[in-house]
């Protein structure tokens, strides 16, 4: 039994759910960010898998999924830098990184 696209899609789905759990259930803001990074990696795996299994003649040479993955990696790096700067700024003011206690914008 060889590999098919569904193997990679299910792997991406499982990884996405683990990352979603990390983003929803954690108190530490850095752990929430780790969950988001895992979710982005899951999406990247599905993107590259779609690019690999695309056989339609001119479009398979355009590598759209891999280009998408490159842009996702770029935006994820920028997002990690800004998010960690925000976490450090919040920690400097309030001495906590617990997302349950950072409720100054709560209505």
């Amino acid at each position: 039994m060889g590999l098919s696209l569904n193997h990679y899609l299910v792997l991406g789905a499982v990884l996405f759910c683990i990352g979603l759990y990390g983003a929803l259930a954690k108190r530490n803001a850095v752990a929430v960010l780790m969950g988001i990074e895992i979710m982005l990696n899951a999406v990247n795996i599905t993107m590259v898998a779609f690019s690999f299994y695309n056989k339609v003649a001119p479009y398979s040479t355009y590598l759209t999924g891999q280009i998408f993955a490159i842009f996702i990696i770029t935006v994820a790096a920028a997002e990690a830098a800004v998010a960690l700067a925000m976490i450090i700024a919040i920690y400097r003011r309030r001495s906590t990184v617990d997302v349950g206690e950072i409720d100054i914008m709560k209505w």
Partner: protein
Amino acid sequence: MDLVTIIFWIVAAILVGSALLVVTQRNIVHSALALVVVFAMAAGIYLLLNAEFIAIVQILIYAGAVTILILFALMLTRTNNIQTASNPNNKQWWLAVVVCALVGAVIVYAAGVSPHAVAFDGNGSGQLPAGISNVVRIGQLLYSPTTYSYVLPFEIASLVLLVAIVGAIVIGRED
């Protein structure tokens, strides 16, 4: 089972296991170190899919830069007890489990019944013209404005990075 299938199952098992370690460890530094394994194994999956350039970029940016950034943030933010209570769950963690199980079930169901997924069955190609490697093709697509290319998104991405650098410095600096 051929070699590629065996490698896929080994890499996928390590990937899912270390991702579970990231979300279940009580010590957040251990979570960050398990995250390195997640990123490295994802690079292995990209290699199986003939995407060498993405695999190298994954190692360089994720396993190198992002992990170091996360470890620096952990170093600069002190929590009460790093050994046992630095990575706690919140009160609604069981609700998060339910939500994640539902989302996963919906995604797997949709992937199973989608006509596109069925049509993509069988051996993957990822075929490029002879003499053109993956890195060469991505370079042509990103940089050459004469053919089908992604020059404009590439420039916008560089602008995004510039804004992110400036924003990170402005947000993170001491007053």
